[in-house]
């Protein structure tokens, strides 16, 4: 199998598996216990916190461990909203193509009286910093812009947006789930106040993640209970999982240059190959793109059929079609970059892993070409387009 769905989840690294399995057996003490055995677990936990902090240029005190990216996103938004509400600031600026962990939390806040201004992400899938500045008001409590988009892989001008937020005294949060461990992220240099990350997106275990909150930003608890995580996230810490996540992150960050050098040419080889398919288009900017992401729309076909047939050929990928989302609408990300429903249904996301080869790339291109041609062969939409009874969009 060629696993090309690393934006969904990644394989745990060998070192992460080793750390996790060893610690489960040996270091099962409760880090909140005062005896030596508990304190050993506490040491492992705090070492992990130091390693995670160092990997994004933060202070260990600024890291809260969570169950994953979604929890971190929820807590970041709820916290910033509470801070804002205390100063009567009830305006939040996200982008149109944030992850649902952001958008659905914002829906909730909207019902509580917050006003939301969605930033356009344009055809290239990039936020324009000047539009962030234009959207900021006296009562803006928070700007939240994802670091790299999970579907189309576009990397946002985070540093510039952060600088604008600093200038206006607005809290800046970034959902960096698809960025941390994949491209260089430094909260200091990037002017980030809050950041969410997820362990299983960078070869750590599922059920782990963290929230960075700059010193001075008061967090609101989502889970009440004991005083773990400086009282901001109750519940006995998942010490083995957290330690394994930290190991995976350290490894990923140390290998960032190799990762980019290895994946970029393979990614571009696939993009070049798929571009040869008539009436297809790359989704998202080519330049500002994570090394692993390829996302295409193919006119006249539907994405779920494409995925099932690729699965038969041993390729695991993803799509933004309605049928794969379980709703009637295709991906909100593709709609946000201006793809109409008709073509958004025919999308394919490939997110590569470090083990991908040129041979894999060629096999993927060959397979996608075959499947697209096959499906178009009995698509009434395609037949009409070819017969001139409609206008090609792509």
């Amino acid at each position, binding site marked *: 199998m060629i696993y090309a769905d690393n934006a969904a989840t990644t394989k745990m690294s060998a070192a992460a598996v080793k750390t996790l399995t060893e610690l489960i057996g040996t270091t099962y003490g409760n880090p909140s216990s005062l005896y030596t055995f508990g304190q050993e677990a506490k040491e492992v936990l705090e070492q992990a916190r130091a390693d995670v902090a160092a990997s994004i240029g933060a202070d260990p005190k600024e890291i809260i461990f969570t169950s994953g990216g979604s929890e971190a996103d929820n807590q970041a938004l709820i916290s910033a909203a509470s801070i804002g509400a205390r100063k009567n600031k009830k305006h939040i600026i996200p982008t149109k193509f944030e992850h649902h962990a952001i958008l659905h939390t914002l829906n909730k806040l909207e019902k509580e009286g917050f006003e939301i201004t969605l930033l356009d992400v344009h055809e290239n899938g990039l936020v324009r910093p000047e539009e962030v500045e234009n959207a900021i008001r006296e009562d803006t409590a928070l700007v939240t812009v994802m670091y790299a988009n999970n579907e189309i892989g576009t990397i946002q001008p985070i540093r510039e947006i952060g600088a604008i937020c600093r200038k206006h005294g607005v809290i800046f949060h970034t959902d960096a789930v698809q960025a941390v461990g994949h491209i260089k992220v430094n909260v200091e240099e990037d002017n980030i106040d809050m950041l969410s990350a997820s362990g299983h997106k960078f070869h750590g275990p599922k059920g782990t993640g963290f929230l960075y909150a700059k010193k001075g930003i008061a967090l609101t608890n989502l889970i009440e209970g004991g005083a773990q995580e400086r009282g901001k996230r109750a519940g006995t810490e998942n010490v083995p999982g957290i330690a394994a996540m930290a190991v995976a992150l350290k490894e990923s960050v140390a290998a960032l240059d190799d990762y980019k050098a290895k994946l970029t040419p393979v990614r571009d080889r696939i993009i070049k190959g798929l571009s040869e398919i008539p009436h297809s288009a790359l989704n998202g900017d080519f330049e500002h793109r994570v090394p692993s992401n390829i996302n295409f729309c193919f006119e*006249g076909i539907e*994405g779920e059929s494409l995925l099932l047939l690729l699965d038969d050929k041993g390729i695991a990928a993803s799509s933004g*079609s309605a*049928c794969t989302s*379980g709703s009637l609408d295709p991906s909100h990300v593709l709609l946000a970059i201006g793809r109409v429903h008709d073509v958004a249904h025919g999308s394919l996301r490939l997110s590569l892993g470090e083990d991908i080869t040129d041979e894999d790339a060629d096999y993927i291109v060959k397979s996608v070409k075959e499947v697209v041609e096959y499906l178009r062969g*009995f*698509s*009434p*939409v*395609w037949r009409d387009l070819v017969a001139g009874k409609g206008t090609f969009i792509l």
Partner: protein
Amino acid sequence: MALYSEKVMDHFRNPRNVGVLEDANGVGTVGNAKCGDIMKMYLKIEDDIVKDVKFETFGCGSAIASSSMATELIKGKPVEEARKLTNKAVAEALDGLPDYKMHCSVLAQEAIEAALKDYEENGQGG
């Protein structure tokens, strides 16, 4: 557990009666590309019998499988029987569809209804 039953996957991978029927005397198209599903049914009716049937579908795996199964269920059958085909019968013949995919079987029923209507309106249905 797989997403679909083996029957669905079989009809998806090896769709029966796929293509265009040049001498069809009843053609029906339902659905729209906006929603992600379009089915087109071609019927060749002679002496009140569905002599031949073909389909073209733009859609997901269950949409393609539903079209394929629907053609199998009416091929060679009297028009009256084809008219009575229900989406439930299509779904059951496929050993079931996930709840959120039942609309695919509805679409298959509607595509056949549309093709029969076209046949009647063409004046060939008497």
